[in-house]
């Protein structure tokens, strides 16, 4: 499944993450992450986002994420609801 429109989920409140999904003309999954804990956990958070996208059959998108200290289950839920909002 390709992402065809711009959708958003989440907030910039503490312990949350704002996820924006956009179409990617390159046809690949590209993740841009800003995080208050980028140095410590950037890789880990990106891996969670990527696997959530792949689990929902996404093959192409631009995923911009601004993390304010969200835990894994919040990250997954926010990515999932950004995908849901595509429909």
């Amino acid at each position: 499944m390709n992402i065809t429109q711009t959708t958003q989920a989440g907030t910039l409140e503490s312990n949350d993450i704002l996820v924006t999904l956009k179409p990617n003309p390159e046809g690949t999954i590209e993740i841009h992450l800003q995080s208050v804990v980028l140095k410590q956990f950037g890789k880990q958070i990106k891996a969670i986002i990527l696997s959530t996208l792949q689990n929902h059959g996404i093959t192409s998108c631009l995923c911009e994420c601004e993390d304010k200290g969200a835990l894994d289950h919040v990250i997954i839920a926010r990515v999932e609801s950004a995908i849901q909002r595509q429909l």
Partner: protein
Amino acid sequence: MNPHPNHTFLQAKEDLVKHKQALFTQYEKPVLSLQANMVGEHKLSGWSAWVIITFEKLIQSSMKVVYKERIFNELGFISLLVIDDDPSHLKQACIQLEETKTSGRCIDLDVYAKGRNLSRYDLGFDERKCLVCDEMARVCIRTQKHTQKEVIHAYQQCLITSFQSKVDIVHFALLSECMLTPKFGLVTPRSSGIHQDMNIHTFLKSIDAILPYFNEVEFISLDQNTHEIFSQLRLLGQRMENAMFEATQGVNTHKGAIFLFLMVLMAQRMSPSFTSSLIELAQPLLEDFKQMDPHHPQSEGERQFHQYQSQGVRGWVLKGGEPLLSNTLSFYASQPDSHDHQVNTLLNIMSQCEDSTIIKKRGWEGLLDFQAHAQAAMNHPESWFDFEQYCLDHHFSAGGSADIFALVLYLHYSKERNLL
């Protein structure tokens, strides 16, 4: 896709931001939100309410608040203040408060403007520190470095240390009673129980109105006999009731609590182990009973005295609050504070207290039935919903037990804080 178990929580967060954006658009001024950074599933408590309301007061005394709103939902207690100030200047003032006040570590002061919260980092400040170990808080949260128990303990200790006076602890105790949910027919932040004329805001207004008067107990001279002390307390109590009725537009929210707290605060001044001084201070109440005319009761209390020989809260104070007070204090002290333990403490009180509000509704037999139901619900959270339903069906709202619950918390923490 299945909805996430935390769906309503996450939805509430998005809704909160939409609401902040709407306020920002309407007022064209920064929106300050106050939230306790308490972990765990029970976000509504006296702990969070105390820190939020204490900071609300600080902010209202030094900044120009143009709009104020208190929200109670899945996220807990949120106070929103629209402030007439430049956003970065306001954020700096808030960081100052977070850094310099003892309880500043227990609260998040977020400044929202132009689509986002201003970050500490953008203004050149460090990220917030963990309450337990001084590491960056977000790192500890992500790695789950500390158990939830540890974090809650550190949080509570931080707030206990920031109680500056007995009146701070009275405030905390009254708020704890107010916030406790479920409360079995009584008013909570999520329900008005059996009441149509009041809600959580009525109670919070009432607490704000009566609180300053408790300071005046300190000014009553001990160089007079107990009858004179008592009559001065009675005058103070009347002024407090007037302030309460004015704030609540005629609803009785804290009459019982005013009486109990004034008596106990004064008795503590007379002697730190206050039981005997409480009994001594209460002696003039005996005259109330003597003067009663059995054929023409002047109040519900008098009617119950003649019908059931129940002396209500006055009789209770005449016995120094015993044995209920000692029983419940040791029950509460037997475990670290938690939401469920607070509910059990209230149920413990309900199972013993001759609560006049219950007697009024269903007589003595009704009281015994109520006490047995409360006893059965104690330590059984799975039965709390049924007990709540029982109270709603019988129109029970055990206000007397709730007052004693607040008193127990006050006594416990004033001892722990050593402010006796």
